[in-house]
């Protein structure tokens, strides 16, 4: 039996195809202005990779993410909060705290031993601590997202960025550049400022190990390092691309529904 999960986020669309035991294929595309189109592109690519002829071969599909109600071939939609919890739990059953950092929001999800969401917090309507923030900073520093992520670029004396607002934080960084702050200290400071924000969100739901990062920004190694330092716990490395954790969770729920 084959099932699918499709996570339509603000920046990327993700599709995962599952069989009884494992991931058959997964694919990430950039979001278009039409969620239906993004969903089709991601799923078509995942199906092609798996050598599956048609979406009709999937017994059940769950949509998730901001565009979850617009996934044309989904049987049901589930919030991305529930899906990230489920996906992370499947990738590592010992995970109890999931920090999902996407393109335009971040959330901390506390899950139980079965991967069920116990509690969650989400950032409020602001790009601080999300992919948008990192994109803006990468543009100002002209270093690319890889530049912000790379562990080699994390300076020893992170500068302090206090503004919670991305736009104002950008001005703050521009000032620091003009004052001659070294690029690595700026990069470390940017990651630290997001880690600080995530720290308070984690504290709000209560930190229980293991902690895993999911979503596109989980690939930011500098951020992971800053968060580890701030929280004093290790960030668990997941065995699959953590960016697809939401789509994976959706597919896992689809499998449950198909079996019911």
């Amino acid at each position, binding site marked *: 039996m084959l099932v699918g999960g499709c996570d339509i986020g603000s920046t990327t669309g993700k599709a995962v195809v599952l069989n009884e035991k494992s991931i058959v294929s997964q694919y990430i595309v950039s979001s278009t202005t039409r969620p239906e189109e993004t969903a089709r592109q991601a799923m078509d690519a995942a199906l092609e990779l798996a050598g599956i002829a048609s979406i009709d071969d999937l017994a059940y599909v769950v949509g998730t993410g*901001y565009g979850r109600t617009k996934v044309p071939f989904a049987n049901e939609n*589930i*919030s*991305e*909060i*529930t899906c990230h919890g489920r996906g992370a739990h499947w990738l590592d059953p010992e995970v109890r705290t999931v920090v999902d950092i996407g393109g335009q*929001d971040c959330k901390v999800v506390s899950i139980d031993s079965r991967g*069920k*969401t*116990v*509690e*969650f917090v*989400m950032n*409020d*309507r602001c790009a601080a601590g999300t992919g948008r923030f990192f994109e803006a900073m990468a543009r100002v520093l002209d270093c690319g997202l890889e530049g912000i992520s790379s562990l080699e670029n994390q300076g020893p004396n992170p500068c302090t960025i206090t503004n919670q607002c991305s736009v104002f934080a950008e001005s703050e960084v521009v000032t620091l550049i003009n004052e001659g702050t070294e690029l690595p200290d700026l990069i470390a400071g940017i990651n630290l400022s997001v880690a600080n924000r995530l720290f308070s969100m984690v504290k709000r739901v209560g930190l229980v190990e293991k902690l895993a990062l999911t979503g596109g920004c989980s690939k930011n190694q500098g951020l992971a390092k800053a968060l580890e330092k701030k929280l004093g716990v290790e960030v668990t490395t997941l065995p699959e691309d953590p960016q697809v954790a939401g789509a994976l969770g959706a597919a896992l729920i689809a499998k449950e529904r198909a079996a019911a």
Partner: protein
Amino acid sequence: MDSKLTSTAYEECVAATASIVNPAVEQWCEGGGRVVGYFCSHVPTEVISAAGLMPFRMRGTGSDGTELSDAFFSSINCSFPRHTFNLALQGGYDFLDGLVCISSCDHVRRVYDNWKRNLQTPFLTIMSLPRKVEDAQVGWYHEEISILREALGKHFDVDISDEKLWDAIKLHNRTRRLQREIYQLRKGRTPVSGAETLAIMVAATAMPRSRYNTLLEEILVELRQREPRNGYRARLMVVGGELDDPSWIETIEEQGGLVVADSICFGSREMWADIDESLEDPVEAMAKYYIQDHPSCPRMYGDQPRRREYLMNMVREFDVDGVIGERLMFCDQWCVEHYMNKADFKEEGIPFLQLDREYISSGKGQLRTRIQAFLETMGK
């Protein structure tokens, strides 16, 4: 699919809630009636009614921006006074013959200062609301209500006798009793949605009171014959402050969370208690009600244990599955309160979700995600 309330009485309430100068206000003004605006549930509206004036609770409903009022507020002032004052600067409150401001919170109380400098409403005053709920503060508020009574009487040239005050108290208590009857129907198999209830509740503050009481009676007849709501995933309670927008509740209910109870300014806190009609002095009765008997709001010092008890009773009485704590961004009254609520509900094993919002609803997608996830978390 649940049916919609169709009575003209309900439609009249919806119309009153959906705009500022609603048909009931227009009719009242055309007949020579005068209107006095007020902020906050702690203003003794009975005094305004006793003077033969119509009390109108200030809102920013329908506001499409804050560009005029932004010049008078800082970036950490909440969006409620911003939108409301913006409407006033656009002339939206020119129909007022008077305005009673109050030191309910620092954001709202500064509306008074800005109003005084920029608008020409004939009667303008501000009440000083105590922060504590002990007997000494009842004395203080007795004095404040007496000052209001005298000033209103003098400006509008009416003698606000004790008899008139008692009549107004009885009229407003009747509203409270009828509203409580609606809430009673929400226990168990509730025939009314939370969005409908809020529309009905807000209307009380935007039309002549005797007219409103008649509408409530008609609505109660309709509700008693109505099929209970079905097809919902969970029974929710909303706790918070200045929420007057039924569409916000509607978004929650569209996700499957039926709002069956509340503790909000325009909701149960308006009417869970009556003004004591057995006392000698009507001003004393009002002072006691507004300081001590009125369900407590977080602006009152040292009263959180009583608020907690109020919420826990409400959860039990209305068989609530989960609680949503709402707060206007930058609201200082509700910021700490919801963290305490969260801990208290956790202790009782009741799921709690805190939501910050803007006065004029925006970001419905984010609201939907949170509500859906909250219901999923509850296993609903």
